[in-house]
């Protein structure tokens, strides 16, 4: 068989399309849900890490450290396969969403923390001198600037999360990779997997380029400041 017949087999591709599309839809749902939970959770963890009373701060540090040190695959497997032993049995989707969200929250918390520390002290002093309370200073002065600063890094984190959804195949979720793998086995032909790779590229490459460009723009504006 030629290379094209092996890796770019149109017949097999047509046959696998329904499977792949359902997998893609699952991936999109998983990614969007995890991001919508993970980012706000990351903000909450960051605020706790920076401003809560000491015991809570320590818990936040432990939370962030553990999730940054553990492979996400381990987190997912523990949630899906180990938790049932203590009576917590979650569906694949919930387990995957939980694992991915908390991982994203830990990384985003650190990214936000660096953003917040980059906002100059003078800003906070000026806002304090005007009589604003902590919530107002955070909400109207610090976070708007901090978030703007870390959008490229947060987008990178989210791109990483979309890629990590492929790990959910290990917890029996029928996302894109798993469907592609199944189609490959079904057709004894690797074309579906190549198609999966292309689908990821199609979605994520534009985002990667966007992050690169906004990073460059941020560096230019910092240099001109």
């Amino acid at each position, binding site marked *: 068989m030629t290379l094209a017949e092996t890796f770019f087999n149109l017949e097999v591709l047509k046959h696998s399309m329904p499977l792949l599309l359902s997998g893609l839809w699952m991936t999109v749902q998983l990614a969007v849900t995890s991001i919508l939970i993970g980012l706000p959770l990351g903000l909450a963890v960051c605020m706790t890490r920076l401003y809560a009373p000491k015991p809570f701060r320590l818990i936040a540090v432990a939370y962030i450290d553990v999730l940054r040190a553990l492979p996400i695959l381990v987190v997912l497997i523990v949630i899906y396969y180990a938790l049932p032993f203590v009576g917590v049995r979650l569906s694949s989707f919930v387990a995957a969403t939980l694992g991915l969200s908390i991982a994203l929250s830990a990384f985003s918390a650190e990214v936000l923390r660096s953003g917040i520390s980059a906002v100059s002290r003078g800003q906070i002093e000026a806002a304090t001198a*005007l009589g604003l309370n902590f919530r107002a200073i955070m909400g109207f002065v610090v976070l708007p*600037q901090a978030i703007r600063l870390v959008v490229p890094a947060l987008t990178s984190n989210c791109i990483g999360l979309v890629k990590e959804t492929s790990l959910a195949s290990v917890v029996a979720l029928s996302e894109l990779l798993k469907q592609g793998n199944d189609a490959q086995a079904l057709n004894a032909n690797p074309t579906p997997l190549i198609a999966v790779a292309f689908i990821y590229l199609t979605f994520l490459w534009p985002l990667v380029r966007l992050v690169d460009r906004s990073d460059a723009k941020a560096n230019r504006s910092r240099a001109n400041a």
Partner: protein
Amino acid sequence: MQVAVDDPIIRITALRKSFGAHEVLKGIDLSVGRGEVVTIIGKSGSGKSTLLRCVNGLEPFDEGSLMVQGKQLLFDNAVAMRALRQRVGMIFQSFNLFPHLTVGRNIMLAPTLLTAKTKAQAAEQARMLLARVGLSEKFDAMPDQLSGGQQQRVAIARALAMEPAVLLCDEITSALDPELVGEVLKVVELLAEEGMTLVMVTHEMNFARKVADRVIFMHQGRVHEIGRPEQLFGAPQTPELRQFLSSLQ
């Protein structure tokens, strides 16, 4: 040495502050009257900025007491501190405008959040204040589009929006190119003429001579000399002040 003031708007008594082992304010006694313009001069490290920042609580002090408009400064009481800061405005050496907000919104932020003003009322007030500092056309500009002098004038307008009883000015022209200093000092002079109580840490001796009611020379954490500008600049009593003044030539 203390020039007596009846019913002062600021009364500082035996104020002490240390940064770690280093005592920066060694017992300050000072009163500022309503409508007075007081300038604080001295070498760097003499404690001038620290003293100023104690008045609005940006720096806590270790001993002594501080009263503003008859109310004690209670550092542990967050509500009281915020109320105090609404009555005492501050202008900083590095302007500290909020870079992500337009000039107009910079001025409007505190009034819309802290007073009963609606957004429309705050916007109108902001336009009025901008006109007062000579920047009417800059309402929608971003801070980074302005020169240093313009930014500082916006900072003054922002502080005035809360209608403070006292303005603290911490070397507000020290970070400006020389040709921009005048436009800022002109605004401050206008405020002084209108009866604003001003406490200014400054190196602008000519301004102090012209506008100040009293000049305070600080040296090594103490009020070393205090009096009218003519007295301090014309007839310095202590060698430290004489040395300081000659070093400025």
